[in-house]
């Protein structure tokens, strides 16, 4: 799809979309599970929103419907996979690639491709602040407890299944916000969620640092800045993947860990 926007606008869009999907991945990761297909929920929301917009539905209604569709799918997946072991959950989340693979550009959709990134940036900033407070709340601590030691968490009365279903649903909802709003992105391409979206989200989480809610946003900013380089979708994914691999092995705490180490000194 041909589009021409300024690098700043392009970066803001990427920051918002990757940041929201990444925050969703981070919330699930915090509860002790690896969601390898969170971008599928963004794709579901995008498909629903695009279809509704093409039928003349008001933008706001189409966006809300897309987000709700993603959250509902997330809840369904969460209920099915929440009792699985960590490996079982990760494998089950790969099934969501079938959703990403099945996505085709909506036929006959007339998309308004001149949307402003302001809404997606507000959404990701709001989600980041909410996640920061959530991490310090009673429920946030319960999710972290389940993620760190499920048996110990049960011993103090926390239901791990409920925590994980909630985490997956919220993660899908955030991805849904990204997906629905991305319909108004000048370079909207629903097939871009196919693996590329997952890699960008994981790169954001790991590069920024999975230890806190602000890590995915810092990582998303890095991914967004790198994304303005004039390269193909495949090469951008390769860059994100190599950065993700390097960070996973060499700097698993992400950039945040560099600052926390410096602060300790």
């Amino acid at each position: 799809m041909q589009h021409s926007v300024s690098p700043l606008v392009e970066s803001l869009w990427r920051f918002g979309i990757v940041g929201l999907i990444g925050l969703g991945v981070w919330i699930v990761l915090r509860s002790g599970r690896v969601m390898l297909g969170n971008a599928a929920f963004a794709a579901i929301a995008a498909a629903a929103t695009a279809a509704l917009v093409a039928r003349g539905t008001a933008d706001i209604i189409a966006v809300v419907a897309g987000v709700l569709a993603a959250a509902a799918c997330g809840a369904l997946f969460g209920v099915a996979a929440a009792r699985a072991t960590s490996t079982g959950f990760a494998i089950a989340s790969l099934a969501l690639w079938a959703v990403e693979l099945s996505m085709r550009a909506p036929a006959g959709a007339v998309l308004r491709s001149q949307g402003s990134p302001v809404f997606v940036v507000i959404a990701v900033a709001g989600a980041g602040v909410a996640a920061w407070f959530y991490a310090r709340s009673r429920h946030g601590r319960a999710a972290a407890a389940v993620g760190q030691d499920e048996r110990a968490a049960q011993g103090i009365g926390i239901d791990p299944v409920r925590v994980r279903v909630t985490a997956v649903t919220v993660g899908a909802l955030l991805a849904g916000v990204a997906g629905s709003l991305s319909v108004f992105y000048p370079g909207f391409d629903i097939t871009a969620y196919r693996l590329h979206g997952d890699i960008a989200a994981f790169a954001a989480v790991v590069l920024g640092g999975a230890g806190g809610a602000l890590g995915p946003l810092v990582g998303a900013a890095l991914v967004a800045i790198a994304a303005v380089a004039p390269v193909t979708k495949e090469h951008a994914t390769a860059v994100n993947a190599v950065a993700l691999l390097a960070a996973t092995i060499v700097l698993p705490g992400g950039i945040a860990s560099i600052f926390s180490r410096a602060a300790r000194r």
Partner: protein
Amino acid sequence: MHRRLGRREFTLTQSFIDIAFRGSIYALFAIGYALTYVAGGTFNVAHPVSAMAAAAAVSWLLARDQPIWVAAGGGVIAGAIAGVIVDRVVLWPARSRGGGPLGPARPLIAGLAALAAFGALAPETERPTHLLHAGYFHIGGFNMPKLTIEGTIASVVALLIVVAIVRATRYGLGLRALGSNTSAARAAGVGAEPMHIRTALLASMCGALAAIALLTAPDYFTGRSTPFDLPLAGLAAVALGGLSSLPASMIGAFIVASAQILAPTADASDAIAAALLVLAIALLPRGLLAATRLRETDRG
């Protein structure tokens, strides 16, 4: 890039051969997943890299007019090398450094990154269409492509060889010991890292051979789509098998193949594999034949 036939005409013989062909390939691919899980207790998301490397090598060799057996041999070698490189460069460092906010998720995420990097940079595979007309066998009133039959036979033979290796060799004994109790196996002298390398070699050869057999199938094409379709079927098979049971993974592979072949449309293959995968994880957490598992799944 990723083409399937639409609606097929069904006959019993045709369906049976299709299930045997596809099931044996899925089983071969799924066994690769199971083997690495048994050896290390971590799931190798990057297993399809060996299949992609093999497909690329076969395509490259065929384009240079090499005979199919040379191309296949080259593909298996390329897949094996890719698998071992992934194990040493990606999985081993991720496995050996625990802790941090990523904790035990590191090998999974590192594997995903390796898969994506290879998938994005791998050369586009040329479909060897001329091979599909290499000859036919007349079976039950149908002309079956020779390569399909040969691919099925090669896959079944490879499966039997892998099972024999795991059951009857010193390596297999070490692998089963590692799967049963890693600490005890190490105390008994089983070197974990040499076992990981050997297992990566065996598993990636299985993945490579599966991809090569699939490359010659009339209604399939492996290439950049390989990160998705073959792994989805293999994952569903291994999930039905409970992650680390070789016989149950094989049965799972044939269940996935049967469901896909008998479905009214070939376009639903990925959806069927995905649905079976989620259902297996949700309803059969210990797999079809729990007693045959070589490693207990993680308890976290």
